[in-house]
């Protein structure tokens, strides 16, 4: 159980946080035939674009309403109209996803209202999905923008049913939080499909940002969940929400179509995956396929082999709430101690986090808490801290611009958890320092410094099944 604190500094130093609207635009990138647009000045888009390009090493669809000085004063509604029309002309999208920015929220146009009148004026675009999400830069963080956008996608595209619709019990909605990589989603799809279930992922980054080579380019997203798929989600048997951030979207789906939901606050770790497999087994009425039995055994074995190296290790993590929760909780299950935990925005999970304190802060705060740790875990911007601290850095989350394979990192499922143990355990092993004649006393210092470790047994948070 952690004390949740907010940094008291006026100046953020070495930001951990990224802005809401680019979180929102990432969610849109998991929708098929979509053109995400930031309603702001062109720099807002340009920075987001570079960020995603460097992380995914892909061409990224992201447009701008190109607000200039005059437009910011007069209001940006004209720019929205022109953007939509230009994008339709050039890219023929199925969906245009618009996130506001600080620039446009400062004035505060009624975009939703405006879009209604736009719809009336442009009946020829009735088939075009237009989703607008309010995501001011000066509030909340990346994860919030992502979550709001997923919720808005549900509200826009899933019909409101007066009475619960006929269900297809094998159809499963999976609301996938922004802490999941395309690789994670691929892994989850494999797992869910093994139970004979048919998952619809919202959003589905695995089809769009997994680095495949398309046959031809489109300027919009390629792959991802279609508007039509989303509109059918009300008829699914269950909704699985992955990450606390997806609760609001799951509730929205429940409200519109009475789809029951189960939230998994993480899928990293043994108990967490046991609960997931048990749930899939129950809703599908099928036993767990043999491969999961073997994978579970392999994970337990890896935990046993690995625990020698994790026990008592001191780790500092900087990550958005759901990712912090997933990875941090699991690491404490392996015997490590989270001595520094910094995150970007609030979440009900934070106070349950197995550390003394969780700080909503920046990488300067993390660096202060990371002196003498065995491992620093945060996104690629942690590289400077790691160098100054002379500790290894495990790159976690977005952006990961200085390593290959960001989209294919897998930390969910038995197998993903197993491989995470190997990756991190091998860092610890590589760091093992050989004893030498002069370190006999420093090697194992005073009791108050290296004394009993106090790790709480972390909880696997499982939502009661409706």
């Amino acid at each position, binding site marked *: 159980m952690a004390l949740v604190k907010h940094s008291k500094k006026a100046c953020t130093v070495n930001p951990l946080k990224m802005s809401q609207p680019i979180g929102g635009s990432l969610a849109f990138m998991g929708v098929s035939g979509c053109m995400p647009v930031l309603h702001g000045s062109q720099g807002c888009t340009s920075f*987001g674009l570079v960020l995603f390009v460097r992380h995914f090493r892909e061409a990224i669809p992201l447009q701008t*309403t*190109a607000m200039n000085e005059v437009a910011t004063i007069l209001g940006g509604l004209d720019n929205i109209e022109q953007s939509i029309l230009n994008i339709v002309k050039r890219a023929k999208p199925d969906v245009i996803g618009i996130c506001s920015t600080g620039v446009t929220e400062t004035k505060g146009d009624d975009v939703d209202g405006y879009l209604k009148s736009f719809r009336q004026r442009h009946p020829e675009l009735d088939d075009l999905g237009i989703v607008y999400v309010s995501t001011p830069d000066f509030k909340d963080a990346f994860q919030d923008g992502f979550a709001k956008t997923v919720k808005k996608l549900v509200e826009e595209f899933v019909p409101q049913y007066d009475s619960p619709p006929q269900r297809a019990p094998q159809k499963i909605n999976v609301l996938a939080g922004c802490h999941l990589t395309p690789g994670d989603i691929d892994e989850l799809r494999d797992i869910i499909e093994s139970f004979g279930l048919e998952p619809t992922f919202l959003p589905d980054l695995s089809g769009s940002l997994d680095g495949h080579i398309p046959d031809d380019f489109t300027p919009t997203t390629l792959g991802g969940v279609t508007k039509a798929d989303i509109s059918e989600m009300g008829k699914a048997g269950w909704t699985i929400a992955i990450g606390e951030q997806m609760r609001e979207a799951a509730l929205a789906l429940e409200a519109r179509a009475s789809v029951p939901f189960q939230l998994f606050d993480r899928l990293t770790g043994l108990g967490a995956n046991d609960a997931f497999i048990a749930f899939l087994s129950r809703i599908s009425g099928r036993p767990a396929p043999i491969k999961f039995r073997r994978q579970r055994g392999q994970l337990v074995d890896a935990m046993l082999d690995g625990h020698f190296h994790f026990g008592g290790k001191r780790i500092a993590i900087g990550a958005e709430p759901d990712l912090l929760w997933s990875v941090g909780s699991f690491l404490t299950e392996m015997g490590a101690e989270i001595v520094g935990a910094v995150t970007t925005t609030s979440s009900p999970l934070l106070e349950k986090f197995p550390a003394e304190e969780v700080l909503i802060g920046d990488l300067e705060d993390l660096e202060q808490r990371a002196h003498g740790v065995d491992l620093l875990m945060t996104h690629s911007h942690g590289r400077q801290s790691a160098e100054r601290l002379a500790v290894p850095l495990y790159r976690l989350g977005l952006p990961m611009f200085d390593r290959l394979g960001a989209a294919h990192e897998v930390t969910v499922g038995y197998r993903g958890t197993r491989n995470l143990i190997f990756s991190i355990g091998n860092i610890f092993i590589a760091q093992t320092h050989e004893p030498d004649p002069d370190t006999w006393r420093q090697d194992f210092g005073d009791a108050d410094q290296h004394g009993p470790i106090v790790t709480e047994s972390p909880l696997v948070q499982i939502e009661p099944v409706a």
Partner: protein
Amino acid sequence: MTTLANKIQDVFNEPGCGKNQGKSEKERKKGCTKQLAPGAAAGGCAFDGAKIALQPITDVAHLVHGPIACEGNSWDNRGAKTSGSSLYRTGFTTDIAENDVVFGGEKRLYRSIKEIIDKYDPPAVFVYQTCVPAMTGDDIAAVCKAAAAKFEKPVIPVISPGFVGPKNLGNKLAGEAILDHVIGTMEPEYTTPYDINIIGEYNLAGELWQVKPLLDELGIRILACISGDAKYHEVASSHRARASMMVCSKAMINVARKMEERYEIPFFEGSFYGIGDMSDSLREIARLLIERGAPAELMERTEAVIAREETRAWERIAPYKERLTGKRVLLITGGVKSWSVVAALQEAGMELVGTSVKKSTKEDKERIKELMGQDAHMIDDMTPREMYKMLREARADIMLSGGRSQFIALKAKMPWLDINQERHHAYAGYEGMVELVHEIDKALHNPVWAQVRLPAPWEETTWEERADKAIAAEAAALAADPAKAEEARRGKNICQCRSVSVGAIEDAISAHALGSVEAVTGETGAGGGCGGCQEKIAAILAERAEAGALPASKAA
């Protein structure tokens, strides 16, 4: 805001800028901040440009006053290298919250400056204005002034919020900031007759260090590089240089010109890219210094170094000749640096696609610049099929371009080399040119291309064969139907920035009897964005003139 507006106007009037010289008074007033097409625009903002221009100053704190997006989404992502402090790589931002938007963020800004000085004690703090506080009216100049007085430390306001225009404008506004607040505020410990400034060089990938050792050898001191690997006091005392070199990107032409105006420091435009250009730049530096009083023997020594280095470079390029002879290089860039490498590529036996350049005369360079400049924007909008078509028609073996076309080129399975600012290799000076040839060789001969071009086992035809077929079918369809062909011709976009088609331009020329590129721009907007399509507009005008439709005056 009035100050900012004046600054912007001032920058638009920049007499050093070639583009401005071609503009009418009215157009200059409009400046570069015309509305870009919403939903069809790309590129950074003025804040981005200002940060790019000044962040290479290594020992100061760069504080971004704005919401998290402006710094949080982008920090520590640029390739300017340092030989000293790493403070410039630390991300500082006020990360303003809703409260600051409602009640103003000046207090937070002031406290941020204080925290930075308390914790990091830099020689100066640069404060960057962004859109939101500019809209809410935070007077950052006043806050900086108050903080500077209170903490007895330079606090420099950089007023270049994103919405005022594109990156280029931000570069120049950054120049204004240091002209107003930094240059001339300190004195160098000593001066020599060999002191120069280098303006507009950012030491990306450490390129300055491919040049500096030669200057060192000649006894020429870089009093200040603005701003690559610079320290604050160097920039602050740069007004004592004898001469300046402005690297040809023109990003900070206003700094060079105003330093000449204010401090009588002559400057020339030069480039470190390409062997000939590098030699020319060394000569120019020597010439200017001698003009300003350095001993004449400097030129002899300079020529000796040039002769030695050129020989060495050509010798090192020679071994690649056999492997590279006949290879066709497609150069695509919106910038102005890549054309200077042409000579080296030709010396290594390569051909530049689409030109008949035999020797790298100034004229040839101009032609390449012309050719490539126009296509700069276009490439981003190409489908792979179009890309493939272009590459096939050009019979290119490798493409050199900026990072933005990287994924398109690679997915078209085309060897590609990054020559923009995100590259990891340094291509400046003599060493850099050899490195470039080496990198081209490496990229071209990487067996990976043979691999990635293998057809997938489930494909009966390759992607390329299908593309060929589709292209042929389209061509046949157009050949069979002249009306459709004409429609296709007229539908092609000329100006990517403003989305203006051939047809629209032709119609405007006909309807309004337009005779100059400026006139076409005024009427249709085409050519008013990046300007890359102005030659194409001129070509249309010329064609119409030839066809006898109207008299045409060739555009600049």
